[in-house]
């Protein structure tokens, strides 16, 4: 186990280092000049040079990379080129919107998709099963932002029961207003995520239902549901947990997309405006942060799977195949 852990942690760290290089390099090779973009039309080339020197973008790339990484280790992600605010502070101020949004969407979609997926598998030829499959297919096909636009139209513009977008100026000091403004965005992300997850849960359950041990249990007189609950769930959980890990990251990305539709001042809107303004320190920090989150989530998912499935633990003892 400890050797497995060491290998996994090593891979994780190496991936993070690679990710930081990729993020840094990709942004530097994007066309466009941060200094020019922030000064705009009407400034002289001397002023541009001056600003580049102020921002440090006139330094060799490896120096800039070194400064960035050194900063990260000392707990500073640098200063925004554009607003001149500390990047960490800027990102932290967006978390109270993006985190609740993505976590709520994740929880809602798990609560919806796991029961629906199991039912759809057990009653796969029934009305319920066919309906769930069809609706989830539709949900997968439709773009996330479009669902958002439709929800705004129905619940904000026509019915007038929820705000069309925005977040209360006082933030979470007005919890009722804050929650109200997140209802539609959460629903939007959750609909998209549930559609995907329901299909995974359904197919994982189907696999389990076809297994010998379930058939054996049923031949011993257990009911279909009882057999599944007793012997199937733990087995079905292994692939589903893997998907949950990926979906947790997806929920964050989904949040980033719908923030734009709902005019929520979260990480998504920050990311978009930062790329437009070539605010490299902010984009770097955001992309690296999201990447790190996915890597760490997957690391934890691997550990969780080993906890659920003893065969995986045995497998690693034979040579760390997983």
């Amino acid at each position: 186990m400890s050797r497995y852990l060491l290998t996994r942690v090593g891979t994780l760290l190496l991936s993070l280092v690679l990710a930081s290089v990729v993020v840094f390099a990709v942004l530097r090779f994007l066309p466009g000049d941060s200094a020019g973009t922030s000064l705009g039309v009407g400034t002289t080339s001397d002023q541009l040079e001056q600003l580049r020197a102020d921002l440090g973008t006139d330094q060799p790339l490896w120096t800039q990379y070194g400064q960035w990484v050194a900063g990260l280790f000392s707990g500073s992600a640098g200063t925004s080129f554009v607003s001149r605010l500390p990047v960490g502070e800027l990102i932290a101020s967006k978390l109270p919107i993006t985190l609740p949004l993505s976590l709520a969407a994740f929880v809602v979609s798990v609560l919806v998709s796991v029961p629906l997926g199991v039912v759809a598998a057990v009653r796969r030829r029934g009305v319920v099963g066919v309906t769930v499959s069809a609706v989830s297919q539709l949900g997968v096909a439709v773009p996330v932002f479009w669902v958002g636009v439709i929800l705004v139209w129905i619940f904000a513009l026509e019915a007038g029961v929820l705000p069309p977008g925005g977040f209360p100026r006082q933030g979470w000091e007005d919890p009722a207003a804050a929650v109200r403004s997140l209802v539609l965005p959460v629903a939007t992300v959750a609909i998209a995520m549930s559609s995907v997850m329901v299909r995974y849960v359904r197919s994982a359950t189907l696999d389990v239902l076809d297994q010998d041990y379930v058939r054996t249990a049923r031949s011993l007189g257990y009911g279909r549901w009882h057999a599944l609950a007793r012997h199937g769930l733990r087995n079905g959980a292994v692939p589903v947990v893997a998907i949950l890990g990926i979906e947790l990251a997806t929920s964050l990305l989904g949040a980033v997309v719908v923030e734009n539709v709902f005019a929520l001042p979260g990480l998504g809107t920050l990311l978009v405006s930062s790329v437009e303004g070539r605010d490299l320190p902010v984009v770097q920090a955001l992309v690296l942060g999201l990447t790190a989150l996915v890597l760490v989530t997957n690391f934890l998912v691997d550990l969780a799977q080993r906890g659920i499935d003893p065969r995986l633990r045995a497998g690693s003892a034979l040579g760390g195949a997983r």
Partner: protein
Amino acid sequence: MRTLKAAAAVLATTLLLAACGSGGSGGASSSAAAGADAEIVIGSTNEPTGLVRNVGGSSGVSQTMTRNVFEGLTSVDVDGLVVPTLAKDWDVSEDGLVYTFHLQPGVHFHDGSDLTAQDVVWSISQTIAPESKSARKNDLSVISSITAPDDATVQLDLSRRSQSLPFYLASVTIVQDGDTELSSENGTGPYRFVEWTQGDHLTIERNDDYWGTPAKNSGVTFRFFKDTTALNNALLTGDLDLVIAEDSPDQLVQFEGNDAFTITEGTSTTKQIWAFNDRVAPFDDVRVRQALYKAIDREKVLDAVWDGYGQVIGSMVPPTDPWFVDQADVHAYDPQAAKDLLAQAGVSDLTIAVDYVAGDPSETIAQLLQADLQAVGVTLTLNPVDDATWYQKIYTDHDFQTTLMGHVNPRDVVWYANPDFYWGYDNKDVQQWVADADQAATTEEQTALLTQVNETIGQEAASAWLYLDPQIRVARAEITGFPVNQVTESFYVADIVREG
């Protein structure tokens, strides 16, 4: 391996997503109070990039803060005229080289301290200092010394006459001696700065100790949007009182014929330009430029983009600049004349590229240009780029043939006197006239010279000016007192009232 794949997918998705761009922000609902207690909520797509003022490209911060929170010695009013502000008045010496500004008495900063001449000296010195990034640094380089003879007087010595000095000074907001642009929130205006939440809103509240006429509302929140649908939804549902600028007539349909809203059409200074790179062939030939200009049906372009709003122009000068003369007909739409001119210039089978920032209205304009040019035998290839790329490729590197751009600044015809500007128009007469105009003894003389500039660049088709954007605002019917025109960077909010 799966882990790495997932991480790579996230990386790719975020970058892709970021590259596409489109979004919004928000977060406030209008209070119901009317009259002097009313708080006004204004929607805008032009968020400040930062709170640093007096820096080029900072139109968002100028829009919200200039005249409202920070003031200059002078201001430009809604008709485009220079009016005294922190300077009560000023004297100009006989030779035009010494300006003596007398400060308005009884002015306090928001922290309670008095405005002194030293504060003005500091603020202007900062703008023209060697390390300044102000877009006005060059314009104000004519100032050779700034002194404060006493606490209420500021004297500027110039190296030559400058008719435009009072206009340029309107862009220099006065902060306290020693305050830097980065840190100061301490102005003299009718509002105090309260907060700015990046990506969401900026709030200012009435300054009850204001030296002049106090604001007619208790405060203003600017809410920032990227997505115009989200912006107009917020106005429809009552979350906003006013939208500063509608960017397409499509959005107006839902407000037209609705008594709950007022739509105003004013004039702007935003000129949509199809600029040529005049320094390279074939655009260095005046006949080719004239031909390309005549090939374009500007009425049709304006109609396609604005559906009856706006105004066709024939030069860089908007009607609110003092040297405006209507030149829309100088190179009126005439495909036959365009073909003849191209033949005279010996140009055939011309293929040219247009670079533009992706999105509307440039997308629509580019396609109409393509069709009109096809009709005179010119092939136009479309090359959409993003904002940052535009600044690099066109503005900095001059690596382009033609480009579409909107220019918002008032009185920016003088850029045609700079051969190093991105469009590279190089005409010695124009350069001389612009230099002479600023050094003119009287405003009449200045106006006459710049009118000449205006007519010459129009005649020579230095660029192809397409149309002037209308300034369309939509407000809830009970909101009045907002400026209808937009002829400066600032959006003055102190007269806005919510009727009871």
